[in-house]
């Protein structure tokens, strides 16, 4: 064995030199973060992994470090740009220097990060998940559910200790409409690696009691982390989309719209906004009820008013018509009685007139009156002489006047020629 040999440290130094010679620059590298943690000095240690696009099995892995001063700058920049913390499970584009340490081995030191790559990756992933959901025909299922008019029984999926959960409950309890709400908490882990499975488990629990609820609120807020990874997960999204109750999301994110937000029946920004959504929904329901009530009251009132006025005018008409009728009848009777009076009077007048005439005539034709007018009455032997035949010369006749008589002797008779 004449060949020279190295000690481990000698060999490692060779590797270190070779790497430094061969890879002297810093390089942009695409990888997924894993196992991100910070030590108490503020340095960030993590793993970079690359997964096979199809099998998702890890095909490359390297340790990485971001020194405290760099991390403070980069993490703030990254969070500001992407809206999420630099945490595990994120696809990143980082500028690294390749290091090799005799004791610690190979590692990558991060000197810069490009948040737009991550945003692109998140967006790409979202598009991918959304497309998958669409192809399976489940994307719009939850959105198509109708929230019942009286949606006041709410299953809440949240971390029990989150400030957002408290805000949500307070907001509902102190609503100005005086509406009653029933909430039931189904606790779940809302951030980190276990959140996806935890939220799905909570959804499955709600499903068992689905008859008791009108809607599910998935809320999160108040935590420092803004790790939204799980809300872009296909598994959670497909569960939520196919859930039989409307899902209302309020995962406390102002800027981003996660896949969960998209498949949810309604997306609100914060837990408080979810509560406001429920309150507004009941307020609308109450408004519709009050509208129906007002329509009932006003319609029935105006109808009864009309009936009363109809009745009044009917009764007025009745009085008017009947008094008119009576007046007319009275007039007829009056007329008749007038007519009768007149008739009787005329009749009486007529009769008395006739009587008078008769009396006059009787008077006029009485012998006394006739004698008064110059006529005389001739009697022979006490009998009225009406014809010359009864008389002869030398007959003694009595001539009667109105005021006495005379006696004469007939000396001559002569018939008048007709």
């Amino acid at each position, binding site marked *: 064995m004449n060949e020279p040999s190295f000690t481990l440290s000698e060999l490692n130094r060779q590797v270190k030199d070779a790497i430094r010679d061969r890879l002297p620059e810093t390089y942009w590298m695409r990888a997924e973060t894993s196992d991100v943690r910070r030590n108490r000095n503020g340095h960030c240690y993590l793993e970079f992994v690359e997964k096979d696009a199809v099998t998702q099995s890890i095909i490359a892995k390297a340790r990485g470090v971001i020194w405290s001063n760099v991390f403070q700058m980069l993490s703030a920049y990254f969070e500001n740009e992407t809206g999420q913390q630099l945490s595990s499970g994120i696809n990143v584009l980082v500028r690294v220097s390749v290091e090799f340490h005799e004791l610690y081995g190979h590692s990558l030191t991060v000197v810069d990060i490009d948040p737009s790559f991550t945003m692109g990756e998140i967006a790409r992933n979202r598009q991918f998940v959304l497309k998958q959901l669409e192809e399976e025909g489940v994307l719009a299922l939850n959105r198509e559910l109708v929230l*019942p*008019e*009286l949606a*006041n*029984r709410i299953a809440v999926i949240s971390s029990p200790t989150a400030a957002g959960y408290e805000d949500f409950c307070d907001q509902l309890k102190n609503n100005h*409409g*005086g*509406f*009653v709400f*029933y*909430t*039931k908490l189904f606790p779940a882990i809302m951030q980190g690696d276990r959140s996806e499975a935890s939220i799905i488990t909570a959804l499955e629990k709600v499903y068992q*009691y689905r008859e*008791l609820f009108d809607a599910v609120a998935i809320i999160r807020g108040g935590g420092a982390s803004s790790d939204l990874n799980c809300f872009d997960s296909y598994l959670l999204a497909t569960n939520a989309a196919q859930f039989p109750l409307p899902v209302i999301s309020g995962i406390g994110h102002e800027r981003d719209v996660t896949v969960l937000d998209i498949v949810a029946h309604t997306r609100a920004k914060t837990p408080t906004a979810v509560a406001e959504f429920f309150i507004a929904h*009941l307020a609308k*329901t*109450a408004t*519709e*009820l009050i509208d*129906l*009530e007002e*329509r*009932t009251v006003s*319609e*029935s009132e105006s*109808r*009864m008013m009309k*009936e009363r006025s109809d009745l009044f005018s009917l009764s007025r008409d009745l009085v008017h018509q009947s008094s008119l009728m009576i007046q007319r009848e009275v007039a007829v009777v009056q007329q008749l009685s007038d007519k009768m009076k007149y008739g009787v009077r005329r009749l009486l007048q007529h009769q008395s007139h006739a009587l008078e005439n008769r009396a006059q005539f009787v008077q006029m034709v009485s012998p006394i009156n006739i004698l008064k007018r110059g006529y005389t009455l001739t009697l022979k032997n006490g009998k009225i002489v009406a014809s010359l035949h009864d008389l002869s010369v030398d007959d003694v006749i009595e001539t009667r006047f109105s005021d006495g008589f005379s006696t004469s002797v007939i000396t001559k008779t002569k018939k008048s020629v007709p």
Partner: protein
Amino acid sequence: MQKMTYTEAKKELETIVSDIESGELDVDALTEKVKRASELIAFCKEKLTKTDKELQKILDDIE
């Protein structure tokens, strides 16, 4: 009535209101309908604003 859902009550109420507004009811029928409408409105209002203790208990008991 107690077994009715809010939606059922509301639907019946809407039918009654449109009947009332049709103006084709006689006064007796109108009075009946208004009476029923008042009951339904009271029922709905109670659902909106009164806590159902029984339901609250059922929810509280879920483990």
